[in-house]
């Protein structure tokens, strides 16, 4: 489906590319482009963070990315290009963890599509974050349960 691009980027071999995202969602008929870039920050809940490791179940994550793109298109209209990419592996402070970009004819749909997509990625995709702290400790983030979540299907 050429209106959607989804990707899992293994940090050991590639990095997320916002320029590629912008290029993908661009179109001569699109006057509105929005992008969300999630980066690893150096502080979380008062603890100094040295880095983050992202674990991910790739087959289901890619399937969910596609479902999110299709759902976003249903809500924001057919004239939408959407780019969803998430990192896998060990990231340092400032590294890119997620890139979402949306292109539409006007700004309202572009903002809405980008917001819908990033919220769905954060809450419904099988990705897990392990924070590594400067004191040498590491901890998995608590996260949100997918048990009986909307993203699950019958049959």
């Amino acid at each position, binding site marked *: 489906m050429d209106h959607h691009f989804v990707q899992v980027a293994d940090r050991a071999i590639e990095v997320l590319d916002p320029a590629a995202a912008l290029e993908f969602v661009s179109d001569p008929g699109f006057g509105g482009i929005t992008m969300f870039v999630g980066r690893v920050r150096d502080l979380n809940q008062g603890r100094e963070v040295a880095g983050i490791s992202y674990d991910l179940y790739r*087959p289901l994550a890619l399937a969910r990315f596609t479902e999110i793109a299709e759902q976003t298109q249903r809500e924001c209209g057919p004239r939408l290009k959407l780019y969803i990419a998430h990192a896998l592996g060990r990231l340092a402070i400032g590294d890119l963890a997620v890139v979402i970009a949306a292109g539409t004819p006007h700004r309202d749909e572009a903002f809405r599509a980008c917001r819908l997509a990033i919220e769905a990625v954060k809450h419904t995709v*099988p990705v897990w974050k392990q924070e590594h702290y400067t004191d040498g400790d590491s901890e998995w983030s*608590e996260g949100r*349960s997918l048990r009986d979540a909307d993203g699950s*299907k019958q049959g």
Partner: protein
Amino acid sequence: MDIELELFGVLRGLEPGDRLRLPVSGATVADLRAALATHAVARWSRISPQLLGSCAFATPTNVLRDGEALPADGRMVVLPPVSGG
């Protein structure tokens, strides 16, 4: 039937290769959940019942609810609460 489970996130490191073969007496996800809870009580001291209860079970394409049938190929993954982005 036996179910081959793959473990992710906070469950990594609990079993060699992050995989577990578990005999399940029953044919639904609920039966698998009960079997895993029994296994966890015996073997996974750092995993609380609350955390295990918040885990989901999935195939490569779907998260399955407790009342659904286990897949014929016996391969599933355990998904702890997610925290992407």
